[in-house]
């Protein structure tokens, strides 16, 4: 699944759904839209986009849709962090991506072991003193 790019309102809607569990658009509009002067339609569009991005699931009750979350906060965070790692470790990062990404040179096992030993020895020496 592609990593979703989320707008501010979409993130707020997700936050609201995570808090409430299952919500309808009317109640979400009262909490998220009315205090900021956002119309019912705008809130409805945000819900619809999140549903299209497969981040929300919905079921019909009467005339209204009830939305619930399909992804937890942790899963979404991991997906975003994963996006960073994918950019770094991707097979052929584009030039633009190379400029964006700060690839840390990983130390080899030998270097790590040598440094760990040095630090441990220093710690031991200090303990003796």
């Amino acid at each position: 699944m592609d990593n979703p790019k989320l707008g501010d309102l979409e993130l707020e809607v997700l936050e609201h759904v995570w808090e409430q569990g299952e919500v309808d658009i009317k109640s979400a509009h009262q909490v998220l839209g009315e205090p900021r002067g956002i119309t019912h339609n705008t809130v409805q569009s945000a819900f619809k986009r999140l549903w299209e991005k497969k981040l929300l699931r919905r079921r019909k009750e009467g005339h209204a849709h009830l939305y619930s979350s399909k992804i937890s906060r942790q899963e979404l965070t991991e997906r975003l962090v994963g996006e960073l790692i994918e950019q770094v470790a991707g097979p052929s990062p584009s030039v633009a991506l190379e400029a964006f990404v700060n690839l840390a040179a990983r130390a080899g096992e030998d270097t790590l072991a040598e440094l760990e030993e040095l630090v441990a020895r220093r710690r031991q020496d200090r303990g003796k003193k």
Partner: protein
Amino acid sequence: MKVESWLALTLALSSVACLGAALAIRLSWRLLARFMEKLTPRRQSSAMLALLATPLLCALAMPLLAFFPSLLDLFGVLSDHCGHHVHHAFHLCFLHSAPPPLHWGVVVLAMAPVILIARGIFGEARMIMRTRALAADFHALSTASEDADVRLLSTEQPQAMVMGWPVGRIFVSRGMGALLDESSLVVVKEHERTHIAHRDVLRKSLARVLGSLMFPETRAQILDILDIARERICDERAAEIVGDRLLVAETLLRIERAHGTTVPCGALGVSAKGFEVRVRALLEDTPREQRAHTWAGWLAALLSIAAFTAAEHMHHGLETLVLSLIGG
């Protein structure tokens, strides 16, 4: 047409100065790098920023030197000396002379650094926007932690970074919390706090833009040294706060064992750069601060005096050069 011609010629002269400075740094890089190794991280960082700024400063200084007599005349210090050598076919004097005919080669040369710096600014602006967008997403998804300035990311991957622009915010993942004990976590947070206190995100942006006038290989090497120097400064500060250099080294080793952190260029991660250099430096004593800018101040003063003294010779030399190029 007069103004455009003078402007093109001025920019072309700046371009030559900029290229000359970049080339001089490129050719003397090995020597410079060996000298830089002996400096403390703080001095290294300042020296790298100064090196990155050199081509731009030379480009700005060149018109001042080239039009030195005209500028003196303009400010009423000394009257321009065009009249003393009327036999010259051309004078670098925007007060009394006509500009040389505008050659397309001059225009291309004049535009080169402008295009390079514009490209650098555009690239940096793009990166800032992407970093800010990611930081906003991370902020929205993160939760408050017991420290007011640290946001908690709910991911099992060990991550700790300063992300955002121009100052950035500190993000630490639950994975990092699970990997490290309390004292090591303090090291990580203090390291990141130092990045914020020193405005390192902004400093890196400035360095990248200035670096767009350097040769790519030299630029990458300078930025690398700058990054490591900034990380070392944060390591040193964290060591000072927790009072244990070995603890900082152990923390870095533990993070590296867990495959380190991965951060975008706009962000600053605790183990992002120069891991081995940093751990080895922490095993040594606290670097003794070299006597502040004494030598740098003297060098700057000497260079300014030399430039001022040579300004007139430079002016005539440039006149001869321009004259031979335009074939007057």
